[in-house]
C-alpha cells in the first residue's frame, strides 16, 4: 500500500467522526476537543485495515493525521 493511500485512509478515518469532520492533515487532533475514546477508536479502525499495530503512546506524541500517516507508512515498509 503506497503512502498516498495510507494518508487518505488515515484522514478519512478521522473525518468519519463528527467532531473531526473538518480536520486537515496538519491539524492537531486535540485542538478539536476529541475524546481519548474517539482517538483509540480511530486508531483501531486504521489498524484493522492496515493489519499493523503501533503503540498508542507514539501516535499521541504526533497528534496529526499527516504524522500518523508517516508512521503507518514507515511501519508498513518495515513489515
Amino acid at each position, binding site marked *: 500500500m503506497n503512502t498516498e493511500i495510507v494518508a487518505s485512509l488515515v484522514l478519512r478515518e478521522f473525518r468519519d467522526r463528527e467532531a473531526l469532520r473538518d480536520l486537515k492533515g496538519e491539524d492537531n487532533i486535540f485542538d478539536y*476537543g476529541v475524546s481519548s475514546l474517539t482517538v483509540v477508536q480511530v486508531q483501531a479502525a486504521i489498524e484493522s485495515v492496515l493489519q499493523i499495530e503501533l503503540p498508542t503512546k507514539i501516535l499521541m506524541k504526533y497528534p496529526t493525521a499527516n504524522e500518523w500517516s508517516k508512521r503507518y507508512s514507515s511501519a508498513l515498509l518495515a513489515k
Partner: protein
Amino acid sequence: MQTKFHLTSEQQAQFRRDGYIGPFDLHDRDSMREKYNSLRADLYDREYAIYDLPNDSPLVGYDRHLDIDFFSMHIEHPRIVDKVVSILGPNVCCWRSETFPKYPGDEGTDWHQADTFGHASGTPQIRWPQHSTFGGAITVWTALTAATEETGCLRFIPGTHEEMHYDESIGMSFDPNSVNVIEKGGVRRGFFGYDYRNLQKDADFVPDEGSAVSIVMEPGQFVIFWSTLMHASLPNVTLRDTRIGFAARYVPCDVVVYPDTDLVEEYGSELKLNKYGVVVVAGTGNSANREVLVSNRGYKFRQP
C-alpha cells in the same frame, strides 16, 4: 511548626465553614498550557502505569502520580502539601489521584459526596480510625485546562461537608449506556455510568442548587475541598474546548487505605492493587498501608 505555604488562620476558618478554599495559583497559565500539550501524550503511555488497563477504560486516569513524573512532583508540591497539612495535621498521605476529562458535549457530573469512596465498588476504600467522628478525604483539584461554566467547571454547595446525604454502602449499578442521555433538574448529567441519586438516604432529597457556586479556574490553579462537600460539575457545552482536571486525594496517615482489598471493581473495570501504595507527602506513614517510595517510572518521592 508552620510551613511556608500554610493556610492562614482566616483561611482555615473559611475552610471549616465552607468545606473548600481557593482557587490558588500553582503554575502560570501559559506554562500549564504548554505542559498540557506533552501531558496529553503521557496520559496514553501506560508502559509504567500501575494498572493493566486498555486506553479506553474509564479508569485510565487513576493513580497516574505513580507513573507520570509531572503528577509525581505535583502531589508533593509544597504549595499544595503545606496547605493540606494545615487541615489534616502533620502526617499526610496521597492515596489516590484521578484525571477528570470533560470533552465537548460531555454531560455534567451528578451532585455527590464521598466519605468512604465505596460508592461505586460497594466496598469502603478508606477507613478512618475508630475514634474519628468524621471521614472523607481532602481533594486538591487542579485545572490542567480552563475550567469555566461553558467547559464544565466544578460546582460546590458551601457548608454542606458535615452531613452526608448519601449512603455509599447501598450500591449502584453501572450502565455505560446512561452516559450523556439523562437530564436531572434540567441539566444533562450523570456519574460516569452510575446515577448518584440511587445512594440518597432520603429519596426525596434535592440538593439546594440555589446556594451553589461555580469554581471557575484558569489552567494551573487548584482548589481544595472535603470530598464530603456537596459537589458536581456542569456539562461541557463548547464545541472544541476540553476541560481536564487532576484530583489528588489526601488523608491523614492513620487512615487505612483499601482495607482488606486486593482488587477494586468499578466503572466496568478492575484494578489489581499489587503495585499500589500510598505516598507519604508529609510526616510519617502507618504500617497498615503499603508505601511507595519510588514511582513505577523511577521518580523518587520524598522519603518519610
